[in-house]
């Protein structure tokens, strides 16, 4: 008797981006999971939000569609090529901004110990309406709330133990996710995730909506406030570090950028931004090149 197909986790982008550890129980056909610091054990995801950008990379014969979906707490990156025909077909016809829902598998790319790129390989993408998106936010909030509570129980235990969490009534995948997260990351920053949860819920309520807008457009403006000075410096750095036609190593960009006084987070965000707006592309894993 099996539990069947892997459940699709509803996780906010603000949490997913920190799911930088992979777990596999070592079984012959066991699936792999990404573990978030708040205990989400992710193989498959179900996410919804505003699709703000879509672009193609790769050749005309073998195009890969990339899209960015924002949920008010951060962004999800999805890419679909010939092995995801259903999703690619939807993405090729979509005109942002649109509310979309995506079901897919979590993907972590770590070119080195300190760089982590999280994306989703979509199995299905569909345009939805705002009400459906709102239901997703509610579900994601509910899921996060349960995990925060489970984690709070876990840290009260001498040794966090999934069996004990299950006996307290938590579903198995939450109990296991929380226990693994504790092993990998230690005690989480509860306040940050509590804030994420409250932010998600307030965006659904008219009395707070002005402060926590999730609509397409308004969010875009926020995102567009990019420090042009930093952008120029970044691109110069890429040029400097490029060797021949192969572009610059991402890890050395981070290294050099750090020496010049930029935080790791800012560097990562800028890299994503420039990749998304097409100023940079990745000729090979772990390297970027100016287009």
């Amino acid at each position: 008797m099996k539990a069947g197909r892997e459940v699709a986790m509803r996780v906010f982008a603000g949490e997913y981006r920190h799911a930088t550890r992979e777990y596999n129980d070592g079984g012959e056909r066991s699936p792999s999971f990404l573990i978030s610091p708040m205990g989400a054990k992710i193989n498959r995801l179900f996410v919804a939000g505003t699709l703000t950008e879509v672009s193609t990379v790769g050749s005309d014969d073998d195009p890969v569609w990339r899209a960015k979906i924002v949920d008010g707490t951060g962004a999800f990156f999805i890419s679909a090529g010939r092995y995801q025909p259903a999703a690619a077909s939807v993405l090729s016809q979509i005109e942002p901004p649109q509310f979309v829902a995506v079901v897919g598998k979590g993907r972590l790319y770590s070119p080195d110990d300190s760089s982590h790129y999280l994306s989703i390989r979509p199995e299905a993408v569909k345009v939805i309406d705002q009400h459906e998106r709102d239901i997703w936010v509610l579900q994601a909030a509910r899921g996060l709330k349960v995990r925060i509570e489970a984690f709070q129980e876990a840290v009260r235990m001498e040794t966090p133990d999934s069996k004990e969490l299950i006996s307290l009534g938590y579903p198995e995948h939450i109990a296991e996710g929380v226990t693994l997260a504790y092993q990998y990351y230690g005690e989480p920053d509860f306040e940050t995730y509590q804030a994420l949860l409250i932010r998600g819920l307030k965006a659904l309520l008219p009395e707070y909506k002005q402060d926590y807008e999730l609509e397409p457009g308004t969010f875009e403006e926020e995102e567009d406030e990019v420090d042009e000075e930093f952008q120029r410096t970044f691109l110069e750095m890429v040029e400097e570090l490029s060797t021949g036609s192969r572009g610059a190593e991402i890890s050395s960009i981070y290294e050099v950028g750090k020496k010049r006084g930029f935080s790791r987070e800012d560097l990562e965000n800028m890299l994503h931004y420039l990749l998304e707006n097409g100023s940079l592309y990745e000729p090979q894993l772990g390297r970027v090149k100016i287009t």
Partner: protein
Amino acid sequence: MKKEELTPHVKDITRALENKENEVSEEEIEQELIEAIEKFEMTLSQAKRTIVKKHGGRASDLRTWIKLPLSELKDGDTGLELLCRVVYSSRKQIAGKSGDTKEIISGILGDGTTTRPFTAWKTTGVELNVGEVVRLKNAYVTDWRGEPQINIGDFTEIEKADSSELPSYSGSNSSGAMVEKKISEVDGSESNLGFTGKVLTVNRRTIVKDGAEKTFYYGLIADETATIPFSAWKDFSLSKGDVIRVEGAYATLWKDKPQINMSERSSVRVLDEDMQTVAPDFSLAGAVDSTIRDAGKASRVNVKGRIIAIEEREITGSSGTTRMKKGLIADETGKIGFTAWCDFPYKRGDALSISGARVKPWRNRPQLNIDDSSQVSAFTGELPSIEELDRPTKMDIDTILRQSGVIDGSVDGVVVDVKNGSGLILRCPECGRVLQSDGTCSTHGEVDGVQDMRIKCVLDDGTGTVNVVMDRQLTEKILGMSMDEAQKLAIEKRNFSVIQKEVEKKLLMKNVTIRGDVLLDDYGLSCYATDVSFLEVDVEQEARKLLEEVEA
């Protein structure tokens, strides 16, 4: 005692005294023997020993065993020859005097006059199998709990006898050794018990013992004082509700509780009368009081619930056609399927108290089996109305998985996948299976396919997934078009898969509620939906509620 019967014993005493100085004549010995028995009320055994000793002989030289029926055994009898049947026998270890252990065999012997407990103090080479008729020579009797007990000692010979040697027993001849008791007084030590009671339940079970099939019967009997389990190795044609007069039964302890056993030497008569009994105690049959939700945790339960569905079925098996009833019963905790193999004159809406129902798995879900070993009566206590109970049980998928499925469940979730083979399909007219992509049936080859519609999809609620199948009717409901319309559309577009695309448009990523039995198999949970509807969520209200909880 007749004079002729004494003659062999007179000769035995004479022989035992053969080499003594003072010869005693057979006539003298006969006189003394008669006097001892008649005047001094000695048993033959005591009398023989007394006379041998009086003349300077040894009792151990006596060789002619005294044949007695078990009902006439008295404490102190020795040198007995007993023809009896082993009613019950078991080997056990007892603590010896110096702390070591010693093996003995103890059990019950019977001969048609009564049953008596026995102990065999030697076990090497001794076989006393239940049902066998044996002849014991030189056995002796001691007192055990105020009753004669047969002892098989080092000098006792055991001979196997033919079972025809033992006349069959007729209970009415039962001797005074039988004790009459109320069921509450039975303590498990009775070897010859008489009582009157009412059969509450009776079950039949055939087991293979020593290569042979044996059938035994067991169940519960009650009188006005208590309920007690019984077992019978003989078919007394007992039926539930019979009031019976039993004589010559014996009692034993089973898991520290007394139990009545009826053997070939018991007489059982069905009385033509009814009897008031105590409230039956089905816990004696291992039944525990349970809610319907938790029924699967026990093998026998007492539950209270209301019938929400019932239908009659005819089942044709190897042993002919049986009529039975099948349905669903519910209380406020859930629903459970049941089958009734006995008289079950109830209808939808009836509130019942079912005692001693057996719980058996059916498609990985527990089901109640109600038969003559169960007791069903109308329940007059509080139960929700049929309308309230006839709602599906709302659950999240993780909970359903943990309890291996749910009967008539309701699950909210998102359709995360619509499988190929949804929409318009062709079925084999013979077997109903969906035709392969080349239009043939895997069993019946080339056939004229019958048009049908269905949806196969995956429902995911964030705690787990269920494979859902929806039939034509539900597919029409989702599509908002009839099968004829769907067919027209497919022909117009020259593509049957256009209907699957329509299903995806309507269903994929949507929040829906499905209703149906959710069952667990090797591929996970699956559900043939009986209903589906799009979920309505009051986002603001629920967000506000959640926010309050978080900020609290």
